[in-house]
């Protein structure tokens, strides 16, 4: 009994201490959140070091060094030094940032960046984007990828740099010699297998019939990012709502989304069981170089890896660049059947992303960081970036000047055939159920289990995916 009272007092004291500490930390955090937009005063901090997190390709190809050198020379009078943050390109700002171990400026995809401002989290700063030189030259769709609405007020938390869209990569030298007479029905000078999924499918069947080790189109069909395009093209969607971020409405199965599942089943039939997992994604670089695959689908930022593999395989770089072609994805049949062209074709909607710059809330030099972002997104630097890294610029003027595929991709974003990844944390719960279903579909087709043959079975399977995603978001998220 004697010990009870002191023990009780000690317990209360400990609890009070914890509450006070937590409360103080909470107030500090709230303060940080509220002062976000007030950090930009137009007065550039002097004699500071900015840690810049860029992607690996930019570092590997020497672009980052060029960018840093140019910026440091431009801002030498302020004593600002921008350096490579030298961290993993996927570094989570949320983990080390609050403790001072994150970068000041980071370059990541829109879904990665926007998760830092989802809910109560405020790890990146809302930016006064109107002040940036690039503001007028970037389309609304691209800015929207970085928009967050707090208390009915819109904030932009990132600056779009690069539009990521899946593209078809193919080997021009592996086209049949007679493609102009046999594989160009519309006589437009473009091989049909590059223009239409139905013909690519048919050409893949032809290759498979001729050789046991060669393939036409090859892709890991379980990759949700790429496979989602088939569902999106037939009316499916990720999240509902005007802003496409209503996580209570998951809609891959909505409208005729199930037709995408049908396409995946058919495509699997011209591949092998490796399409049910990641193997093809990893081996496509060397297999394409060896000529074992005719085509694959991936994003333009890995173009140099294909070239590198072709050079390793004994081709000259010139030959490799001439024969490895990146182009827009083919058109899908309206019927949703790769063997039925009777109803015509439609553009394929693909899942895409906008990579861009954001500024950490924990930076000690927000104005210098903003100056860096302004510099890095200038016309000159974006053009240089596109030239060195093969990215597709979000800046309309750069895309227009570079022409070709860059202009197409920019137009695709405006036209809506690029479905920008929803900038919500819940997106993380989408991939696993989707991947599993796509892998099951491919396996079903290749092993002859034939569980998902009828439209009803495909629809039901996709509805299950929606339900699983919903459950994952609202129970785990």
């Amino acid at each position, binding site marked *: 009994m004697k010990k009870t009272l002191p023990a009780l007092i000690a317990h209360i004291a400990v609890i009070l201490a914890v509450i006070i500490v937590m409360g103080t930390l909470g107030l500090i955090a709230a303060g940080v959140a509220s002062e976000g937009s007030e950090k930009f005063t137009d007065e550039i901090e002097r004699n500071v070091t900015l840690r810049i997190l860029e992607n690996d390709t930019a570092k590997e190809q020497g672009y980052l060094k060029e960018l840093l050198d140019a910026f440091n020379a431009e801002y030498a009078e302020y004593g600002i030094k921008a350096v490579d943050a030298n961290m993993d390109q996927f570094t989570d700002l949320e983990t*080390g940032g609050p403790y001072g171990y994150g970068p000041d400026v980071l370059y990541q995809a829109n879904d990665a960046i926007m998760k830092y401002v989802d809910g109560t989290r405020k790890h990146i700063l809302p930016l006064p984007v109107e002040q940036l030189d690039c503001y007028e030259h970037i389309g609304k769709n691209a800015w929207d990828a970085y928009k967050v609405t707090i208390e009915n007020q819109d904030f932009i938390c990132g600056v779009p740099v690069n539009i990521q869209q899946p593209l078809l990569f193919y080997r021009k030298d592996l086209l049949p010699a007679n493609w102009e007479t046999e594989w160009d029905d519309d006589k437009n000078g473009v091989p049909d297998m590059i223009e239409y999924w139905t013909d690519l499918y048919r050409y893949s069947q032809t290759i498979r019939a001729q050789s046991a080790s060669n393939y036409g189109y090859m892709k890991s069909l379980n990759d949700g990012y790429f496979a989602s395009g088939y569902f999106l093209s037939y009316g499916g969607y990720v999240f509902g709502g005007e802003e496409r971020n209503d996580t209570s409405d998951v809609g891959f199965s909505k409208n005729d989304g199930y037709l995408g599942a049908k396409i995946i089943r058919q495509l699997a039939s011209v591949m092998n069981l490796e399409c049910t997992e990641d193997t093809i994604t990893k081996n496509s670089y060397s297999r394409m170089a060896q000529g074992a695959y005719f085509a694959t689908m991936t994003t333009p930022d890995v173009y140099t890896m294909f070239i590198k593999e072709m050079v390793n*395989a004994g081709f000259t770089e010139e030959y490799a660049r001439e024969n490895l072609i990146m182009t827009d994805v083919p058109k899908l049949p309206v019927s949703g059947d790769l063997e039925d062209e009777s109803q015509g074709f439609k553009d394929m909607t693909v899942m895409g992303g906008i990579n861009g710059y954001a500024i950490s809330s924990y930076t000690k030099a927000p104005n210098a960081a903003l100056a860096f972002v302004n510099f890095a997104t200038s016309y000159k630097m974006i053009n240089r970036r596109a030239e060195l890294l093969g990215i597709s610029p979000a800046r309309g003027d750069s895309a227009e000047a570079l022409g070709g595929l860059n202009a197409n991709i920019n137009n695709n974003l405006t036209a809506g055939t690029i479905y920008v990844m929803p900038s919500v944390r819940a997106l993380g719960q989408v991939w696993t159920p989707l991947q599993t279903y796509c892998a099951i579909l491919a396996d079903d087709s290749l092993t002859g289990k034939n569980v998902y043959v009828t439209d009803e079975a495909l629809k039901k399977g996709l509805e299950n995916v929606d339900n699983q995603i919903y459950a994952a978001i609202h129970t785990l998220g």
Partner: protein
Amino acid sequence: MNQAKVKVAKAKTKKVLNVLITYCILIVVAFIFFFPCLWLILASFSKSGSIYSFDGFFPVEYGFDSFKTLFTDTVMYNYPQWFLNTLFIASMSCILGTILTILTAYCMSRFRFKSRKAMMKTTLVLGMFPSFMGTIAVYLIMTQFNLINQHWGLILIYSAQAPMGYMVQKGFFDTIPYSIDEAARIDGASNFTVFVKFTLPMAKPMLVYTALTAFTWPWSDFILPKMLLVDRDLYTVAVGLMSLGETEFARFAAGSIFIAIPIIVLYFCLVKYMINGMAAGAVKE
């Protein structure tokens, strides 16, 4: 007479058969375990650098290109730096961890003090929990001490955790007769002199065993360095190899093979001491 001969012959046949079957099983098991290592070694010498150009299981052409790349192409993946980082962390942890473990074990073996039993039991129970269980707590603590992204942060953790496994060493010290300590004390030796001049020389095998185990853990650990090291140039080999791009398989294989070399050399040099040490601590005489 004949029956006896038949019996002997039968016994011989049985023995030969036994040996034959045992060897067959051992060879199969050894092959199962050795094959991945062999494959990795051969893959590291692949000239093309890609596992997808192999003819069946093995590379078509061999060369040292992967090893050359490993040490010369350091813009993205600075393997030599990672190797030195790992060596520094493992060596320092080995020195500090060995000192702390040996001191703890000696203390628990030779001295009787209040709460000794309770401490022994507590450390025994705590040692049963996997080290990664407290990673979040460790991370938060390290942030408070400003030891994130610093090799000394890792060394501190490895060294501090090492004494948790002091039981084997204590078992060894228990086998050294206490009468030696008493004789030394009668001659005027202090506790420290007894430890340094009498016990330690006798505990050489155990010192080697402790040092080796204290070295191998940080040498191959992944979880802690992955959590605490942010800067790429501070990575250890395990973390660095995991950060390689997906087409860098040959470099990964070469890096994995090379990292094993120092530890293999150490084992071959010290294995006789190590076996002595392990056996010595196992039985209380």
